[in-house]
Structure formats: structure tokens, C-alpha cells
């Protein structure tokens, strides 16, 4: 992972901070390993002849060394950790601004959950390598080498080698069991969230459950999830306890070797008693760095996988590009579609075929068709979320591909089918397309969308929070806010309503349509209305009936109604006369 430019650039930028951290940690560890040696010297001094002054000297030395070690080590550790957090924030920003560049199709291919897991899991994993990983490898390397140097030079290399053998298995154990524990705890987490999901679903359909007397079945399903949690947690406990037992076991063996072998060396006067005592302390100091070596290997393995996932993500290129020298948006845009055929990259059948029509500036087109007939695809093409072939769509005589997307979108007001709202206040939702807040415009737009009174009656007016995806509002209110959001763009030249009146009651619908009509006459706005409900299309100049991506019917409403057997007149009759006979 250290060769990725994302990381190397960061290291280069903060190289002096890193150098400082390495030096601080290095010196701190060299100081730390003096502690057992001082204790050993003190103990030896008892046999050589002790004085109060000497005791004070050694105790003072211990105190000074401790303070020096803690200060330097703390400084080094903090620096590394802080830099890693800065890197993390930087990485998150890179991800977010990259996502803003990618188009709709990318977000259809990847679920929000998947994308979010990059921010939630991959970025922190990389952070962990940059903070914990670097910090631990520094500590471990310096402490291990310094301790070895002390035991080999000041005590006895054979004793060191013999006692070290069992300890060397520690990193192996960590590398072997560590990832298993990680995997297992993820399984436990998954089981927990499966249980939560099931409980959430059950609570949401509590009415259904009660009205079908299905409670025992739900309890059974819930119990199965809790059993899964139990089984997986116990497996995790088994792994954990094994791991927690193996490390002290290895340490214990090593300590016993030191006791017997070191004892013998002391008895035969090959080493001093002080050296023996110091050695036992050193031995306990070696356990941590050895565990850390194992940890670091695990951390780096995880994070290099995470980092490469992030790299892949950042490599995803936007499919649609702006022209090198874009033309500017015409002031009175008619929309001309010239034998438009569009096929999604991975599909076999075209979504739209041979569409040809013209919407003069200031006129209105209504579009009718089943789900999947190609209505929304047409919207996406007009917003250039999808790229039509050259020469297929013209805005005021300019090929849509010769416009910059920013310019095009600044002049199109769009009301999406799902009417997505942000969780911020309703006023900010309406004012979303504006660069600066403008309460007057927002109020006016709310009025045009017939939502002003509703908002004014809310406890906090325009400051009312609409909740996640507008959950605090009714379906009809959401749609009207989404319409107001589009209408706030007063200089929009094209207005597109993608089935955005379905949840609005008929009275309000007519009122909104009348407001749109007025707007059209004043601003010469070209309007496209897509709807299932034919009542929404009462004022349109032309109607396009789409069927399987093809123009099934096209003409004025009157024309289409007179075509007996046509889809439009068929739908018209269903919706006016009602369907089935009951009873």
C-alpha cells in the first residue's frame, strides 16, 4: 500500500512531522529499555555495598528516565495519530467530491450501502494502518531491537536466544488467529443487524401481524435470529479465549526457561543476580512488541485491501463529458428530438426507438405510458444524465451535446418522480437550487406549488424539518415541495414534471396546473409533464404515448381521444368510468 500515490503524496507533504515522530519514538524506546538495567544495577549494588545515596541515585534515575520516555513517546504517538486523522479527512473529501462527478448509472449499479461502506469501513481501516500500524511498527521495532541489544550486550546472548524461542511464536499466533477473530466478530455483527432488521420489519408491519394472528410465527423467526447471534458469539468467545490463553502460555514457557537457565547461570556466576532480575523484566518487555509485529501484519493486509478498493473507486471515470468549447444555452429553447434511439450499455433492447417530435418554446408536451415504457429515460436524456447520439436532441437548435451540463442544468427545472427531499428544513429544500438563500423567492415558489399555506401552518413554518427523505410530510406534500423546488428557479427555460402529481388531490392538482399555465405564458417556459393520471394532462398542447420505447401515439389530446382503440382513449375510458363489477 505504500506505493500508492494517495499515500506517498501525503507522506511527502508531512515528511518533517514523520521524521520528528520517528526520532521521538526511537529515542523514547532507547530510554525505556534502561529501566530494567537500572533495577538490575541497584540489586547488584546490594552485594557490592549499598549506601542511602546510591539508593536515592538509582531511584532518581528511574524517575527521570520514566518522565523522559513518557514525554517523547507520547509526542511521537500523538503526531502519527493526528496525521492519520488528517489523512482520513482528506480521503473522505476525495471520495465525496469524486462521487459528485459520477452519473446516475453508477449509483444504480452500486447500492448506497456499498458506497457508504467505503466511508464507514475502508477509510477507517486505512486510517488504522496510518496511525496504529505505523505507530506500532515503530514502537515494536525500536523496543525489540533496544531490548535485544541490552540483553545480548549486558546480560547473556545464549540466555536471550533460549528464552526468546517460545516468544517468537507470538507473531505467528497473532497472524493466524487475529484475522479469524476479526472475521468472526463481523459475523456476530451481521447476526445482530439481521435481528434488528427483522425486528424493524416486524414492528413496521405490526398491524398486518396482528390482523393475521401471526405473532407466534414472528416470534419463531425472531428466535431463530437470536439463536444465530448466540451460536456466532460463542464461536467468537472460543476463538478469543484460545488466543488469550496462547500468548500467556508462550510467555510462561519462556519465563520458566529464563528462570531455570538464568538461575543456573547465576549460580555458576556467569551472570550477576542483578542481571538475572533485569533479564526477567526485559523478557516481559518483549511480549508486547512481538504481539505488535503480528498486529501490524494483519492491519497492513486489511488496509491494503481497503486502499485498493478506494483506488478502484477513485478510478471510476464519469461517462459523460462536457464539450471542449461549449455553446451557451439559447434564450428561447424549443426542444427538438430527431429520430432518437437510445440503448443502455448492457441491455439488448433499446429503451427508446425512433422518437421524433418538436416542442416549440413555451408549449407543453404530455407523456403517457406504462412503467418501463421509457418516460424517465427520456427525462434523463434531456438532463444529459445519459448521452444521446449526436444529432438526436436539440435545444433551441443547438445539439444538447454541445452545451455544458452545468449551463443546461442551470436552465432546466426538474421535478423527479420520487420527489427526493433532504432532511433539512422545508425552506432550504425549496431553496436548494439557489446559491444564496432568498426567502422571497422561496415563498413565491411555495405559493405557486400550492404548499405555502400548509407550510405556514406547520409549527415552525419554513424552518420545519422534513425528516429523512421528507418522512414528516405526506406524499402529496412531498410532491408539492419538490415542485416548489423546481419553480424556485425563476429563469428556468425548460420545466419537466416526472409523474410528480400522483399523490396530490384533484383540486390542488388543477390549481397547480393553472399556476404552471400562467408561468408558461409569462416566461415562455417549455414544459414536459409525465403522468399516469390523465387529469394532469388537461392543459397540454400535445400528448406522446410511449409503448416499449416507441411512439405509439402522438398528437393533440382531442386527436388521440378520437382514435378509437388507441391506448390513450382506452386509458381515458378506464379512468373515467371505473373498472370492475363487484359483488
Amino acid at each position, binding site marked *: 500500500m505504500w506505493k500508492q500515490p494517495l499515500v506517498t503524496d501525503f507522506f511527502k507533504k508531512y515528511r518533517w512531522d514523520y521524521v520528528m515522530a520517528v526520532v521521538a519514538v526511537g529515542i523514547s524506546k532507547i530510554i525505556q529499555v534502561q529501566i530494567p538495567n537500572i533495577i538490575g544495577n541497584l540489586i547488584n549494588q546490594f552485594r557490592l555495598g549499598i549506601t542511602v545515596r546510591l539508593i536515592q541515585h538509582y531511584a532518581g534515575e528511574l524517575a527521570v528516565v520514566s518522565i523522559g520516555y513518557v514525554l517523547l513517546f507520547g509526542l511521537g504517538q500523538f503526531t502519527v495519530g493526528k496525521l492519520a486523522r488528517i489523512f482520513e479527512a482528506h480521503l473522505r473529501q476525495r471520495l465525496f467530491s469524486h462521487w459528485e462527478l459520477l452519473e446516475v448509472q453508477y449509483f444504480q449499479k452500486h447500492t*448506497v450501502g456499498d458506497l457508504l461502506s467505503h466511508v464507514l469501513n475502508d477509510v477507517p481501516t486505512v486510517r488504522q494502518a496510518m496511525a496504529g500500524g505505523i505507530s506500532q511498527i515503530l514502537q515494536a521495532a525500536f523496543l525489540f531491537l533496544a531490548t535485544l541489544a541490552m540483553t545480548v550486550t549486558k546480560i547473556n546472548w545464549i540466555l536471550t536466544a533460549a528464552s526468546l524461542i517460545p516468544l517468537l511464536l507470538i507473531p505467528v499466533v497473532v497472524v493466524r488467529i487475529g484475522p479469524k477473530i476479526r472475521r468472526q466478530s463481523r459475523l456476530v455483527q451481521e447476526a445482530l443487524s439481521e435481528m434488528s432488521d427483522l425486528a424493524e420489519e416486524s414492528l413496521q408491519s405490526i398491524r398486518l401481524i396482528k390482523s393475521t394472528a401471526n405473532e407466534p410465527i414472528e416470534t419463531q423467526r425472531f428466535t431463530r435470529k437470536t439463536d444465530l447471534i448466540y451460536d456466532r458469539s460463542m464461536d467468537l468467545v472460543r476463538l478469543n479465549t484460545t488466543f488469550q490463553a496462547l500468548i500467556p502460555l508462550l510467555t510462561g514457557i519462556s519465563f520458566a526457561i529464563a528462570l531455570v537457565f538464568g538461575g543456573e547461570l547465576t549460580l555458576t556466576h556467569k551472570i550477576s543476580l542483578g542481571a538475572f532480575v533485569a533479564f526477567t523484566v526485559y523478557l516481559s518487555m518483549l511480549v508486547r512488541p512481538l504481539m505488535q509485529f503480528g498486529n501490524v501484519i494483519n492491519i497492513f493486509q486489511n488496509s491494503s485491501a481497503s486502499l485498493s478498493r478506494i483506488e478502484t473507486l477513485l478510478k471510476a471515470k464519469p461517462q459523460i463529458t462536457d464539450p471542449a468549447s461549449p455553446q451557451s444555452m439559447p434564450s428561447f429553447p424549443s426542444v427538438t428530438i430527431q429520430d432518437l434511439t437510445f440503448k443502455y450499455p448492457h441491455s439488448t433492447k433499446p429503451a427508446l426507438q425512433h422518437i421524433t417530435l418538436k416542442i416549440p418554446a413555451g408549449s407543453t408536451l404530455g407523456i403517457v405510458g406504462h412503467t418501463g415504457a421509457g418516460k424517465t429515460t427520456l427525462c434523463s436524456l434531456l438532463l444529459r444524465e445519459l448521452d444521446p447520439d449526436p444529432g438526436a436532441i436539440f435545444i433551441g437548435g443547438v445539439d444538447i451535446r454541445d452545451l455544458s451540463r452545468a449551463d443546461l442544468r442551470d436552465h432546466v427545472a426538474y421535478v423527479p418522480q420520487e420527489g427526493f427531499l433532504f432532511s433539512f428544513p422545508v425552506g432550504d429544500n425549496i431553496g436548494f437550487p439557489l446559491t444564496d438563500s432568498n426567502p422571497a423567492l422561496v415563498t413565491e415558489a411555495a405559493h405557486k406549488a400550492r404548499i405555502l399555506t400548509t407550510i405556514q401552518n406547520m409549527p415552525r413554518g419554513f424552518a420545519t424539518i422534513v425528516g429523512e427523505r421528507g418522512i414528516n410530510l405526506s406524499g402529496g406534500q412531498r410532491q408539492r415541495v419538490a415542485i416548489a423546488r423546481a419553480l424556485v428557479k425563476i429563469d428556468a427555460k425548460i420545466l419537466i414534471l416526472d409523474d410528480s402529481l400522483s399523490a396530490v388531490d384533484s383540486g390542488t392538482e388543477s390549481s397547480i396546473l393553472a399556476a404552471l399555465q400562467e408561468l408558461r405564458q409569462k416566461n415562455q417556459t417549455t414544459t414536459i409533464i409525465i403522468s399516469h393520471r390523465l387529469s394532469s394532462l388537461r392543459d397540454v398542447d400535445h400528448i406522446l404515448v410511449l409503448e416499449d420505447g416507441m411512439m405509439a401515439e402522438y398528437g393533440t389530446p382531442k386527436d388521440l381521444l378520437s382514435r378509437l382503440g388507441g391506448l390513450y382513449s382506452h386509458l381515458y375510458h378506464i379512468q373515467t368510468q371505473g373498472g370492475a363489477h363487484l359483488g
Partner: protein
Amino acid sequence: MAKTSGNPLRELMIYAKPYRILFVGIIGLVVIYNLTQVIQPYLVKVAIDRYLLVHQAHLGPIAEIGIAYLMITLIGLVANLFQTRLVAFAGQKIVREIRIELFTHIESLSMKYFETHDTGRLLTNVSSDTTRISQFFTQFLLSVIRDGLTIVLVMGAMLILNWKLGLMATIVVPIIVVISVVFRPHLRQSYNTTRSRLSRLIGFVAENLTGMRVVQVFHQEQKQLHAFNNLNYPYQDASITEYKWDILFNRSFDLLGNLAVAFVAWLGGLAVMHHAIQLGVLYAFISYIQQFFSPINSLTQNWNTLQSSMISAERVNNVLATPPALSDPQYPIDPDPIGPGAIAFEHVIFHYDPAQPVLQNISFSVKPGQFIGIAGETGAGKSTLISLLGRFYDVVEGRIQVDGVDIREMRQSDLHRLIAVVQQEVHLYSGTIADNIRLFRNDVTMEQIEGAAVATGADTFIRNLPNGYNTWLTPRGSNLSAGQRQLLAFARTVVLNPKILVLDEATANIDAVTEMAVQAGLVKIAANRTTIVIAHRLSTIRYADCIYVMHDGQIVERGNHDQLMGLHGRYSEMIQKASITNQSEQLA
């Protein structure tokens, strides 16, 4: 806290009762483990004082001590291994029971409870509160026993070796406690700040990923990036602050540990010099003094666990203490499962608050097999009527009978088997299409499922799905249209086979062709059943045997379509107002 201590704790202990013998065993194992930990430094002390300081060389005893050391280590490890596993076993079993009990109880609560309580809150109760309760058993209890014992044993060992030096060494204990107590709130607060900033950041990213299309279509990428960074950098700062406190705390402990060693070296050194203690005792003291740190730290940490478990326990107890509002009668009448299906409302009055009547003196009767429509504006009381029939609420006055039996004299589960309600919003489960039709009931066969789907016309679209009946659905499954969901709900109803069918008609977003299929399905399931339809589009009930028009909680008009049109009252007004009429005038 004062309010919650005591009671919730006792409630928690009730769950532990079946495992009390196990807990005694666990305590035994903890004692063994802790003893081994205290004996280890003592063995080294013996080696130093008895064998290494004397001048004749004897390797034998040293080897024996080495073996003893290894044995002690092994015994300690095994004791620790089993103790941890047993604690986890008991904790997991307990939390499993609490979860199931809680879930079963929540299911039994009244509809009113769900309408007045946030279900998100209940969900937290089921998932995170129970997890925190389990930490009480797996972490807090264990820590109190293990860490408390460690401190006592280490202190005891020091006092036995040399009580004067031992007493002086215990000075570090209050210092450790003070440091822990001083740092803990900072650690906790900085942790909480970081968490809440992170969750706001994640919420923002999730929302913007979902609404990326809106951001792009309105060309607001810059604005949103700016908003993102207004969350991103404060999170970074909080995270650095958290890390800073973490390091300050850990390094303070580190420093204190080393200074304590220096302190013992000084005091102990003087004692050795004056022959008050042996050299090995000094070694043992140096080892022991370091053993104080981690148990005290873990105890203070677990104090927080205790607090959060108690808060969680209190919340869970509150839910468990809520009684199911409607109880079954003591001697319920068994309704006839294949009886005719007559309904009678007699002078029914209902309100939540006497000042605001919801239903006033509603009386009507439905003959078996009839098709009834209920019309009226939003808030007229149509849905309440249905809730009363399903006994989600009890009437305030009057009574409701099904086949001559007051519904309050039946078991609720029996009543619900008689009546099926198809709601406006069709709930889907995460599961296959087949699971969704049979509602996970194992006694429903695949033939029954397919039969129901064929009967209601759902079979056609199901077979067109990539995996047919095994297609996986999700609750917010955008993979099915509103009409298809309706058809699934109809198939469900056929499987349930109720005598009485109540249909809260779906309004929006069904395209016309699917609507025809839905209407056809409706005819199928309504056949041979008493059917009540709450109509939003009046076209659906045009052919009803009788239509009741509701206004302000009263039935204001009744009769079939033609009769009501003849009245020139509210019904005919509603028909005229309907958008369809509007449109036909426009286009005609």
C-alpha cells in the same frame, strides 16, 4: 442515576437466577486464576532469596521452581479460559431470553401503543439496549469479581511479605483511582462528541448518495461539498481531540507505573539495606505494584458499563411493564370458523378523548356475502371503523358482533382469523415471494401458494420475475409496483381464507393496466366473502350492495349508487368533484 439504582439491578438479577450455580463456579475459577497470578512473582522471590543468594550451587530446586512456575501458569490459563467461556455462555443465554421475551411482549402491545410510541425507540430497546444489558453480565460482573479480587490479593500478598512496605505501596491505589476518575469524563465526552459527529457525517453522505441525482440535476455539487466539509473537518478535530485524551490518559498511567517502581525501589532499597526485607521481596514488590494498574483501570471503565446497562435495563423494563391494552376474555367463545360472516354495529361510539368524538352512534348490519362500500373524506372516521372491527381498539359504547357474537367475547387471535384486512400500504417482508404470500407459515404448501396466486391473477407477473416464486423481496422493494404489491396482498388473503374481507383501497400510482388486474383480483377474492371496501376512488364501489357515506364520525347517507345519486346529497357531490368528471368535461 439515583432513581434507577437498585430496582433495575434487581430486575436484571432475576434473569441470572437460573444460572446461579454456574456463577458460583465462575467465582471459584476466578479465585484460582487470580491466585496463580499472585503466586508467580512469589516463586521468583523464593528462587532469589532461598537459592540464588546462597553460595552453594544447587540446580535441582531451581528446576523445581521452574516447573512449578509452568504448572501454575497452566492452571491459571485453564481456569481463565473456562471462566471467560462460562461467563459468555451465561451472558449470551440471558440476553437471548430477554430479547425473545421483549419481542414477544412488544408484539402483544395494543395498536394504540404503536401509534403513540416511536417504533425506532422500540427497535433500540430490542437491539442495543439488550446488548448493553448483556454487557452487565459479561463485562461488569466479571470485572468486579476478577479485578476486585486481583486488587485484594495483590494487596494481601504485599502486606504478608512486609506490612509496612505494603501499606506504603498502597498509596498508589488512590492515585490511580483519582487519575482514572479525573480522566474518565473527558475520555467519555470526547468519545461521544466524535461518535455523534461521525454519525452526522455518515448521515449526510448517505443522504447525498441517495439524492445524488437531485444534487446533480440542480447543479449544486459545490454547495453540497461545502456542507460536507463543514461536517468532515469538525469530525477530524473531534477525532484528534479524542486521540489526545486517550494518549494523555494512557501515558499518565504509564508514567505513574514507572514512578511507582522508582518509589518502591527507593523505599524497598532502604528496607533491604536495613535488613528489614530480603532482596527477593523487593523484586516481588516491583512486580506487584505494576499489577494494580490494569484492574483499577478496568473497574473504572466498567463503572460506565454498569451505568449504561442500568439505563438500558430500565428502558426494557418499562416496555415489559406496559400491559397489552386489550385483554382476552376469561371464558372466550369459540367462533364458528365456517359460519356465514354477518357483521353488526350497534350504536357504536368511539373517541380517544371525550371532547373529540371520532365515531358517533354508528349502527349498521352486513348480511353474509354482501359487498359494502364506505365513502367519505379523509378524517371522516372510515379507518377507525375498520380498526374497531379488527378490535385494535375497543368501542367506548355500543357493541360490534360477528355472526351474533360480541367481538370482545372472542380471543383476539380467533377474531383475526375471521377477518382479513388488506391495507392501503402493502407491507412486504425480506423474503421470497412465496414467503410473503404464506407469511412464513410452514403449514402452507407450495400448491396453496401457487393456487392463491393464480386465483388472484398474481401468478402471471410472478412467473415473469427472474426467480419466480423464489424472487427475493425487500420491504422497500422498488422491484415491485404498487399494483403488483396489491396482487400479492390478495394472494395472502386467499391463503388466510377469512370469512370477512376488509379492503382499504389503494389510491395512487397504479397504472391503468395493472389497475384492471387489481380489480379483477379483487372480484376473485371478494366472491363468497363478506366484503367491506373503504373507497378513495368512488369508481371501485359503484356496484356495492350498499354504500355508507361518512362525515364527521357519522353515517350521513346509505344506499346503493343509484339511490345515493338520487339523493343529490354528499355522495353525488363527491362524485361530481372527482377529478374524472372534471376531466371528462374538459375533454368532451
